[in-house]
């Protein structure tokens, strides 16, 4: 029973990581640094909460999150692909923009600077796997990385994404529309991360200011720690979620200060980047504007 509880809680925490990390893998494999995941998530969370509140339908909320995530991602794509702005700077700006816009519209729509009113979510109350099974976003979270793996390694589009991320000039020379593939990859990465945000807002039945609380960066950490492939990223997400679950379980026992458990994803990522356990090699064209 207790083991089951632990696993279901881990899954519950892992879902937003899995969704956002799928966006991270997709974007980075296409050669665009996924620094904006946090912003896409936050934007998605707000859109989901606002529209679910206004319409009473969590499904419409999810659709709105997809639109919001895609819009933010396209701002990033236009800035980095069309205008060749620096990916790091624009990624950070996207995060600041999402923070600002969600705060502004929180005031405008709900007259609050902290949270929205209660919004309808998906059915299923209580804890455990049974409650999770009612939430379609959980199912999407479970299948998203395997599906992405299939797309990346088994379909022509996936081959194009990887080619564009490794060697855009070579991809262009064999007729791959580099720019279009990059736009599509970034737009979908924004939508996937926004789904993660929508899950948070609908699961907690409200939007609160800054509610993503660094989860987008944990997803980015999982992308890198998982060595830019869906399987590795998925395992990393589960590992990070298990650590967080453990931290929640240990609260009050003072076994380990919670701050040290919080650090785990970030420390592991730095260790992986430093190549202490094997070398992790990013996509070759990551961060570079394509010269098509």
């Amino acid at each position, binding site marked *: 029973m207790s083991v089951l509880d632990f696993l279901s809680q881990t899954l519950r925490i892992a879902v937003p990581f899995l969704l956002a990390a799928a966006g991270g893998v997709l974007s980075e494999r296409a050669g665009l640094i996924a*620094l904006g995941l946090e912003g896409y998530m936050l934007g998605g969370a707000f859109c989901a909460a606002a529209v679910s509140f206004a319409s009473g339908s969590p499904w419409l909320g999810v659709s709105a999150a997809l639109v919001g995530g895609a819009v933010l991602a396209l701002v990033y794509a236009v800035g980095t692909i069309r205008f060749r702005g620096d990916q790091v*700077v624009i990624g950070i700006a996207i995060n600041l923009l999402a923070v*600002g816009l969600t705060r502004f519209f*929180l005031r405008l729509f709900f007259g609050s600077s902290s949270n929205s009113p209660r919004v309808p979510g998906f059915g299923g109350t209580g804890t455990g796997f049974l409650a999770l099974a009612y939430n379609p976003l959980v199912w999407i979270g479970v299948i998203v990385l395997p599906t992405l793996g299939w797309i990346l390694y088994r379909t022509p589009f996936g081959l194009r994404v990887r080619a564009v991320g490794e060697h855009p000039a070579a991809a262009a020379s064999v007729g791959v529309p580099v720019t279009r593939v990059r736009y599509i990859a970034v737009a979908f990465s924004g939508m996937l991360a926004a789904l993660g945000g929508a899950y948070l807002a609908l699961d907690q039945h409200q939007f609160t200011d800054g509610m993503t609380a660094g989860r987008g960066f944990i997803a980015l*950490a999982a992308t890198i720690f998982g060595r830019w492939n869906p399987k590795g990223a998925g395992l990393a997400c589960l590992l990070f979620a298990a650590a967080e679950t453990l931290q929640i379980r240990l609260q009050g026992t003072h076994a380990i*200060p919670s701050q040290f458990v*919080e*650090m785990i994803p970030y420390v592991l990522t730095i260790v992986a*980047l430093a190549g202490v356990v094997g070398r992790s090699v990013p996509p070759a064209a990551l961060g570079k504007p394509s010269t098509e």
Partner: protein
Amino acid sequence: MNRRTLEESLLPPVVALLLAAVVGDVLILSFGQSPGAVYRLLLEGTWGNAYGFGQVLYKATTLTFTGLAVGLGLRAGLFNIGAESQVAAGGFVAAVAGMLLPAGIPALLCLPLFVLAAALGGGIVGAVPGVLKAKFGAHEVIVTIMLNFIVLALLNYLTSAKVHVPDTLHTPELKSGALFRLSDVIPAFHGSAANATILLAVIAAAVFGWYLFRTRRGFELRAVGLQPRAAENAGVHVGGVVWRALTVSGAIAGIGGLNYVLGYKHYYEEGFASGAGYLGIAVALVGRNHPLGIVVAALLFATLSQGGLVVNALVPKQMIDVLQAVVILAVATSVPEVRRMLRTSRRTAAT
């Protein structure tokens, strides 16, 4: 600076400000207010009275340090996203040093000690990505982002478990070494947080310019930033430049922590400079990594964030967060574009 580089440097920020003003208009109108009235209030509340101006100076002081920190890294072709935690680490180490000092030492005597302590705190945080980059090629952007979370969690633990005053979230006050506030000299500044640390910021900007443009080390640093391979071939030890640049960058950001700890509250409190590290990126970007530009950009962003508080009665202050992001986006996208445009127009003019 000749006319060409001046055009290339000034055009993007101007474009960015115009765009931000347009976006600001839309946001203000969506809240049912008049843009003219809001902008007038914003200017009056910041540059129009001594208290507001003092607050602008206080915020600009921290932003100058983080802007210089990010700018130094960028001059070496390195992106220090870690200023956020480096400011905090600098402030924390300085506050702990202040706890350990005996009372009654003149401020001027302990100042070098505090600068050293703050530089040490920020410098250690900066050295980690520096060494990892130089030794293993680990990307400094990711390492500094991850380190932000690690360091802030560590400081949170140290403060809450080791050194806080019971029932508060801050450390005990410094025993000695607190700097004077500007209001002690000019009474009109009364109530504002502006303090003598602003002099340190001006000195830091001057030293930054001297180091970068007048010393051999600074030349090497810029060479690595422009063309690492060429620098390597010319005999520059690139790895050494990389870790030194990131360490010094962290140290500069760390000294920025003194603005709060030594000049304003005289203790370390969590989140005392939250956001200053990320805005430092904006400041360096708009200031084009030039010391003078960084000071001006720091004043600009300080005006915006203080202005947000002033206009909060009419429109949500959160509007300013949006405008700051728009400025960054616009500058980042227009820098390469402006360069291309100016080159094309020059080519057509030449033929």
